[in-house]
């Protein structure tokens, strides 16, 4: 009885999570004429017309490239800044460590919408309106708290004696970080990097506000701007959504174990 209940429960949860995505996939391969028919079940025939349309009618490749570039730069920058900060917070004697960590956490609780207008003015004043740099800077700021917390836990879980040993063996504090702590925290870097990447890939609010043209437009905004004057091209939206979801799904599948590890690091002693 119990295995049956368990299977049923699992099926329910999986359906709950995946059904919208499945609907999206189905919509993306349905002929346009069938789109409004309910229920959204199996299409009578499969079509690639929507996929063809998004790449032909829109600068979609450009938008994907923008997103990839922004997400990659954000990830690298967040790790480059976050890892040394986390290392210092975890292993060095930092004055006001608790305050800094609390501050970092507080920043991540700040509703982004509250910062949109001031950030918009600041970035415009800097001449960064409608540039990828504007997004990279903003995303890095907002993804750093998570990265710092995650990595602080990772570094704090390293035996302190390893750090002491590296120092005695002749490393500077930075040398100990680079030669010993960083390689050992690789799973944490991977987890923090992935979460940052996914955040930057999916972000909508800032991207909508800070960009005006396809020069800097990213995927979520690009998709949102699909609707035309007289109709909503559901097929194309679905096709675009599926296209840009797949890389994230693939990343998450490959590194799934690492992400979980990263999120729970420090929670239990390994």
């Amino acid at each position, binding site marked *: 009885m119990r295995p049956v209940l368990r299977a049923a429960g699992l099926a329910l949860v999986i359906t709950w999570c995946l059904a919208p995505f499945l609907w999206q996939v189905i919509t993306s391969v349905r002929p346009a004429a069938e789109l409004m028919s309910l229920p959204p079940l199996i299409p009578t025939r499969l079509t690639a017309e929507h996929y063809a349309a998004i790449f032909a009618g829109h600068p979609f490749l450009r938008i994907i490239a923008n997103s990839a570039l922004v997400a990659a730069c954000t990830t690298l920058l967040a790790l480059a800044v976050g890892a040394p900060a986390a290392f210092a917070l975890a292993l060095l004697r930092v004055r006001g460590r608790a305050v800094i960590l609390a501050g970092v956490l507080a920043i991540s609780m700040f509703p982004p919408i509250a910062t949109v207008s001031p950030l918009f003015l600041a970035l415009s004043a800097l001449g960064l309106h409608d540039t990828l740099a504007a997004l990279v800077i903003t995303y890095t700021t907002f993804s750093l708290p998570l990265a710092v917390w995650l990595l602080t836990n990772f570094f704090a879980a390293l035996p302190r004696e390893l750090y002491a040993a590296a120092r*005695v063996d002749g490393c500077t504090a930075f040398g100990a970080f680079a030669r010993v702590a960083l390689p050992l925290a690789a799973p944490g870097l991977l987890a923090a990097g992935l979460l940052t990447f996914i955040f930057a890939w999916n972000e909508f609010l800032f991207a909508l506000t800070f960009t005006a043209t396809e020069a800097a437009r990213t995927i979520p905004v690009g998709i949102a701007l699909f609707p035309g004057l007289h109709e909503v091209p559901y097929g194309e939206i679905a096709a675009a959504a599926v296209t840009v979801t797949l890389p994230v799904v693939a990343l998450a599948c490959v590194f799934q174990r690492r992400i979980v590890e990263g999120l729970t690091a420090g929670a239990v002693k390994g």
Partner: protein
Amino acid sequence: MARIRFAGLEKRFGTQPVLAPLDLVIEEGEFFTFVGPSGCGKSTLLHLIAGIEAPDAGAIYFDDDRVEGLAPGARDVAMVFQSYALYPHLTVRENIAFPLRVRGAARAEIGREVGRVAEALGLAALLDRRPRELSGGQRQRVALGRALVRRPRVFLMDEPLSNLDARLRLEMREELKRLHELYRITTVYVTHDQEEAMALSQRMAVLAAGRVQQCGAPQQVYADPANLLVAQFIGSPPINIIRGDAVRDLPGVAALLPAHANEPLALGVRPADVRVHFEERPGTIPAEVTLLEPTGSDLWVVGRWRGQRLNGRAAPGVRLERGATAHFSIPSDRVYFFAADSGARLRSD
């Protein structure tokens, strides 16, 4: 190699003093041990020498160089940690080479020195393994190798044998002694195991509550303890302490301390000096046997006399039983007297 001098060295954690002002000299090439119960400040002292922690006051000199302000890497010390602290992501070869690589040594020199150390420690066959593939004893050797590879001025060891099983510990003890005789590097060793301290060191300091209670050659500390703390800490099995009126009722003892006739005393006598007999003899005291501990070469007998616990040595094979009466002979020339309150040693002259 260096002579180490501490001048008024002091360390507190918050307001809690961990190390009372320490003045001490460790001679060049000496094997010196700080021994004491856990929490006595001995690991902190080692961290101060290494530069992992900074003192609150005082100075540390290596020869004539004042080092307590230098970064750990600039002091030219090497350290073996209790947990070994091997770098898990590096092979044995890379672990041993690490201090040389950090210092930018030439590739050829690194290869040569790693080879030399691996040879001396019997690690040649393990060079391409990672630490997790090694046994405890092998890890210990790698940690030693990493410390020995660059012939430091000072060699620090923080309870390096405490994670090994008893047999391996004895083996490594011999090995450490051999290595010290080979390289003659000034070595500061920290342990809570008094037997280890006795067996290894040329001189040792008994540390308790952040203070050096006594410093000297192991045999000297054992034979002539400065106070009750030292007497109780050094020696295995631990020294017998008899307190109260019973002290003066021991045969031959009352006459030894005319100067302190009216003070409360504690008397110490080492179990190894107490002989236990089956039959009564002149000058023995009768005690009920509560525990028998044969070790092969000896038979340790724990007895109870006037509410005091007494441990002594009987010849193996003596017919003694728990609950029966045995006769303990306490040689009056082997007893120590201490003030019962302060624990200070009282001498008979």
